[in-house]
């Protein structure tokens, strides 16, 4: 199969890669692009572990073809911290132990960040509905929801 050349922007950096026409964006991220922070949990859009944003729109990268990223702006978990400085959500997840095995964590963080950008003051119900597409088999969700609520409150106070 002939490989396709794709030019896109990932975490603010212009990026080029080669892929098969049927590769998913997640395949490209974890393969040629070497960005393995996005995880493959289900590969069918159910678990949210591969969450990224495309033009600030939250999606599952397993449900997008890599070739579709041509000309778009992607953001992944790798773009969340500023150098060594963690994003407030990342810091809070650590402090409040909102993760155990870690497979869901990058998706949870990317999805929570997308929520707080749209809605800096979500209710607990809004957080729970927003994260309904991110499955976690360890925490029981409470710690994650509390970490997101706490981060939102702190970010509002700043």
């Amino acid at each position, binding site marked *: 199969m002939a490989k396709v050349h794709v030019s896109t922007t990932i975490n603010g950096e212009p990026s080029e890669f080669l892929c098969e*026409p049927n590769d998913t964006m997640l395949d490209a991220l974890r393969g040629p692009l070497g960005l393995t922070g996005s995880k493959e949990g289900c590969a069918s859009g*159910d678990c949210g572990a591969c969450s990224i944003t495309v033009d600030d729109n939250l*999606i*599952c990268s397993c449900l997008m*073809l890599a070739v579709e990223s041509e000309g778009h702006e992607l953001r992944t978990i790798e773009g969340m911290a500023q150098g060594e400085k963690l994003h407030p959500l990342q810091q809070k997840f650590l402090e409040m132990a909102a993760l155990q095995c870690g497979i869901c964590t990058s998706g949870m963080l990317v999805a929570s960040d997308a929520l707080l950008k749209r809605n800096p003051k979500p209710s607990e119900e809004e957080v729970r509905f927003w994260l309904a*597409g*991110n499955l976690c088999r360890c925490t029981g969700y409470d710690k994650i929801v509390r970490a997101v609520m706490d981060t939102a409150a702190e970010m509002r106070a700043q």
Partner: protein
Amino acid sequence: MTELRYLAPNSLDEAIKAFAAAGSAGRILAGGTDLLVQMRAGVVKPGLIVDIKKIAEMTKIEQTADGGFRVGAAVSGMALHDHASFGKVWPGVLEAVNLIGSKQVQGRASAGGNLCNGSPAGDSVPAMVAAGAVVTVQGPDGRRELPVEQVPAGPGRTNFKPGEILVSFTLPPRPKGSSDAYLRMIPRTEMDIAVVGLGVSLTLKDGVCTAARVGLGAVAPTVLLVEAAAKALIGSKLDEAALNAAAAACSAACRPIDDKRGTIAYRTKVAGVLLKRTTAIAAQRAKGN
């Protein structure tokens, strides 16, 4: 392995030409939330994927000259949600579209894909049927319009001709005192497939229902327009007798299957219950319009 080609044309004509030439090997890509899963599972092995999202008309939401809406076939649920006025005019259609999958899925999935996928349980379809939406399709023989309820032919099948592509939904203007609602029965609170789904659109004048349409999903091989239920509501003040008659009409229209999601008896009963509940929500909304 057959060679897969990916095309993302800027024009509809180009898309149709390529799609028609590919025959049964062609697949349209809008949000891809069904297509990519089917490809991954090996259920479909397309030779050509035509991505329609670079065609301006496909991703546009616009108000028509008469006050209706035209929604492009590839408009995502999130884009529809974020539109300034669509959800105020068509809250039932919006809540149905926004029930499809997670926020991540909403970022990609479209009402167009939901319709073309041909699932009897697609959430947006009963709401679009109730709304009286008309779809525009274009193929090698030109453009045509048909009522949305005429699109599904059976599970996974549509009545489109070879090479035809869904372009947009047109929703009619709303008279004063109109609104709509959609409810689905699922055994959990989120992220599930409808056991029964029901959309109601109605118009009230001085408390009397002057127009109504009812769309019913997941209880037959295709989503149904239940004209007998609408007839029972029209002319009434949505009193108990009218609601009972409309609910009975919905139950009578059911030709469901027994499966893990629900039995025939259960789906048939729930169809009537949902008619009453959905009508109450639509009526409450209509009173404020």
